[in-house]
Structures are given as structure tokens and as C-alpha cells.
């Protein structure tokens, strides 16, 4: 009986008026909705479903290349790119350049995070510190970091120092902005609590302000990672003699579009990996937040 009504409903036919009040029917409909997900939602979620788009792109790319519809000088076939990647790995080119790029990015990132956190603490925890630093950083923020490159080249030359400095600046700004906002945005409720339980200033900073600002810092870290890779790509186009960017630039000179593609894939993997690292750090550090516990 139940199954019959369910089937009738699903086929979209009209049902007799009194059947609507049949509790068994209501139960059946409810169970059905719970199993299928929301009627007005975007549809049922599938594990690894997000891979569909990339898969379709590779399929399109492979078919086009195999059918000769894509000029290999414009876009080499996937298998050519894979073979080139293997070639670059075997002769050590890729690893060497990757190592140079990774060290460069890591160095700039470390300086940027360190300086960003330090200045954010000074300016977030004391009024005077805020008056000294916050205005400066807000002005700096209005100038895109990459616009500073000519000046940085005049100061530090075109060597490694310039590259690390530019990357550090790109990381510094988002780390500072997010951390500072989080430090200043501590809920006044917690300030009152700290006063009533008699916390000292240092205990207040250690137990309330710093852990409360951690989510903001991690948001800054997310933007900072993006900033580091962006700056890396740009500075490696500038008279570099090693690094992924140098490899790509050189390939452009010789019209090796397959090598350029390999470089871009490496950039993508680096970006994805560092983003995953930040997500992991968030999950580890913010277990107290409901969102990460479920």
C-alpha cells in the first residue's frame, strides 16, 4: 500500500484527497526526502565530485590533440607534456629549479609572517603602537606590493635579496591586516570577564587575546600564502638564473610550450599543497570551533 502511494507520487499523478492525511504516506515522503537531500537544494553531493571539471578539461584536451584539432605549437598534447615533465625530472632540471623557487618563497614567507605578526602585536596590543604602525601599514596597503619592485631593485639590486624582499612584503600585508583586526576585535564580553576574574594584563593577553586572534591570523596566513606565490611568479620573471619562473621564461625564448605547461602545473601543485597545509593547521589549532569538529 505504502509503496503504491509512493510510486503514484513519484510519477506525478494526482492522489485522492483523503490519502494526504494518511500518516503512513507522510512518513514515507519524509524518509524519501531525507535520503535524497533537499528538494530545492543544488542536488546530492558525491565524493570527489569536484574532479569532474578537471577530468572533462583533460578529456577535451586529449581528444582535441589526438584529432589534430589543437596545434601542438599552441598547446602540446597531454602525453607530450607528461613526457617532457618526466624528461625534466630525469635530468634533474625540474627538482633543481623547484628547490630554488621553494627556498625563495619559504624565505620570503617566513620574513613576511614574522614581521607581520610582530608589528600586528605591537600595534594591536598597545594604543601607542597602533598610532605608530597602523597608519603606515594602511598607506602601504594602498600601494600594490608589485608596484614597489622598481624601488626595491634600486635598493637591493636584482639579486636574491630583492626577490625575497618583494615576497616578504606580499605576505606581510595580509598577515598584519588580519591579525591586527583580530587582536583589536576581541569581544568586549571577554574583556569584562577577564576583569571580573582578576586576570593580569599578561594573563589576559595569553589566555584571551592571543587565542581569540588565532582564527584571524590563520585567515591572514591563507591570503599570505597566495601572496607569496603571486610575488614569486613575478620576481622570477626578473633576470632570474634559476627557479621555476626562470625555466618558464627560458622555454618561452625557445617556444617550448610543453615546458611552460609543466612549470604552470608545478605552480598549481605548489599553491594547492600550501593551501592544504594551512587548512591542516587550522583544523589542528582550532579544534575548539564547532565547524572543525564535525
Amino acid at each position, binding site marked *: 500500500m505504502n509503496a503504491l502511494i509512493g510510486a503514484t507520487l513519484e510519477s506525478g499523478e494526482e492522489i485522492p484527497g483523503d490519502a494526504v492525511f494518511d500518516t503512513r504516506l507522510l512518513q514515507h515522503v519524509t524518509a524519501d526526502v531525507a535520503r535524497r537531500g533537499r528538494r530545492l537544494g543544488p542536488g546530492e553531493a558525491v565524493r570527489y565530485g569536484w574532479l569532474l571539471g578537471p577530468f572533462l578539461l583533460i578529456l577535451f584536451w586529449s581528444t582535441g590533440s589526438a584529432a589534430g584539432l589543437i596545434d601542438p605549437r599552441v598547446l602540446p598534447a597531454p602525453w607530450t607534456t607528461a613526457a617532457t615533465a618526466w624528461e625534466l625530472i630525469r635530468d634533474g632540471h625540474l627538482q633543481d629549479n623547484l628547490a630554488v623557487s621553494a627556498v625563495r618563497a619559504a624565505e620570503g614567507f617566513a620574513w613576511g609572517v614574522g614581521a607581520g605578526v610582530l608589528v600586528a602585536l605591537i600595534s594591536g596590543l598597545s594604543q601607542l603602537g597602533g598610532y605608530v604602525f597602523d597608519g603606515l601599514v594602511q598607506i602601504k596597503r594602498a600601494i600594490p606590493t608589485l608596484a614597489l619592485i622598481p624601488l626595491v631593485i634600486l635598493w637591493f639590486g636584482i639579486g636574491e635579496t630583492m626577490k625575497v624582499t618583494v615576497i616578504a612584503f606580499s605576505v606581510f600585508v595580509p598577515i598584519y591586516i588580519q591579525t591586527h583586526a583580530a587582536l583589536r576585535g576581541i569581544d568586549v*564580553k*571577554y574583556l*569584562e*570577564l*577577564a*576583569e*571580573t*576574574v*582578576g*586576570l593580569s594584563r599578561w*594573563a589576559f593577553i595569553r*589566555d*584571551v587575546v592571543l*587565542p*581569540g586572534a*588565532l582564527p584571524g591570523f590563520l585567515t591572514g596566513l591563507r591570503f599570505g600564502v597566495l601572496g607569496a606565490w603571486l610575488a614569486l611568479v613575478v620576481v622570477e620573471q626578473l633576470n632570474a638564473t634559476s627557479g621555476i619562473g626562470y625555466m618558464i621564461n627560458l622555454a618561452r625564448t625557445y617556444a617550448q610550450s610543453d615546458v611552460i605547461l609543466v612549470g604552470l602545473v608545478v605552480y598549481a601543485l605548489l599553491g594547492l599543497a600550501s593551501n592544504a597545509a594551512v587548512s591542516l593547521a587550522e583544523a589542528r589549532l582550532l*579544534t*575548539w*570551533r*564547532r565547524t572543525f*569538529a564535525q
Partner: protein
Amino acid sequence: MTEPVVRVRGLVRRFTLRGVLNGVDLDIAQGEFVALLGRSGSGKSTLLRALADLDHEASGSGEIVVPRLLSVVFQDARLLPWKRVLDNVTLGLAGPNPRERALAALDEVELAGRAGSWPYELSGGEQQRVALARSLVREPALLLADEPFGALDALTRIRMHALLKRLSEIHNPGVLLVTHDVDEAIALADRVVVLEAGRLIADLRAPRDRVGRVDPAGAASLKRQLLALLGVTDGVATAAV
């Protein structure tokens, strides 16, 4: 009467132009449970915040004497979400063996088993019990509670009443409970004071028998009296707004 733990004389508090407290006098004795009733906007919370020294934004005058060791229970449990339950209770706790004392306090509110939980894992009533443990573990001479059960459901509220009553008898602090619930005030307090337009307009003793139980006839009469003072007769608000 022993030396009062709270002594307030001629307390005036103003926010920009509006006067909120217009000359309040109040004494609370050691171990005395005082409920502070009043309509919303009558200045109840302002008085409590003045006693807790949390009203930095207000200007005013008057004399306040409160014990150095006082605790506040807020309407929201106000647990630090990034500290586990036990660490919330030991927050700012001075003296020897803070963890053992905090565990004992959690045991008193029947939450010793949740010492390692995150606050978000607790229900609203459980969070408020942790807040109560945090307040009482420092053995305050004065407990200030600002509508501590206002956000709880009716059943949880009744259980919290019994818990607060029992614990305040064990620890024996002076208590000032801000509430707008007449029944809550009568069930818990030794004395009920009513604040209206920034002044205390009534100071009534709650009817108790020899063992401290509420005397039903006296309670009903007190309730009528309090409701009239709050502008409610026969369930209809008479005061013009």
C-alpha cells in the same frame, strides 16, 4: 545584623544625558541572598555593573563598598570557547592546587565528567553551570548574577534555581540576583528589592518558615505586592510607557 558586605549610598549613574540610577542606597549582609527586581530599563543591570566595577562608560557619584573578592555570573555563560571546561574554571584562579579546586567546583555542579570538553559541546544549562562553578571556586564574599537563567528553558531554569540555592547556602556569599522573574525572586531570595526609574521603591523580606522553606500563603501575597509595584495587576500592565 553583622557588618554588611555591600554598602551603597546615594549611587547616581548617568549615560550621556539619561539618568539611570538616581540615588540608590543598598546594604547586603554576609550570606544574604537579595533579589533585585525591576522592569526593563529600570537600571537593574546598571546597578549590578556599578557594583562589579564594569561601568567605565558611565559617569556618576555616590559611595560603593564591595568586597575585593567578588564574582559575576552573566546572562550568557561567557566561557572562553578556546579553553576546555576545566581551564575555564581555573581562569584567573589564585592560590594552591587550582586544578583540584576547580574539579571540586565542577563536581558541585555535577559536571566533573565534562572537565575535558570544549564549551560548544555543552548545552546552554551546562555552560551556565560551568560559569557558576567558575564563580564559586574563588569563594567570593559577594556573588553578582545578572539574569543568569534568562536564556534557559523553563525546566532547566527550575533545576538551576535549586542548584544556586544549595550552593549559595554551602559557600554563603552575599548574593545580588538581578531578575525580572517575580517567582524566581521569591523562590530564591531572603530579601527582594524593587528598582523603578533608578530608585529602590521597595525592600521586602521573603516569607520563610523555620527551616527556610517558602511559606505559600506569604509567597502569594508577596507576589501580588511585587507585581503591583512592577505595574502589573491581574496580569495586565497598567503603567503607561
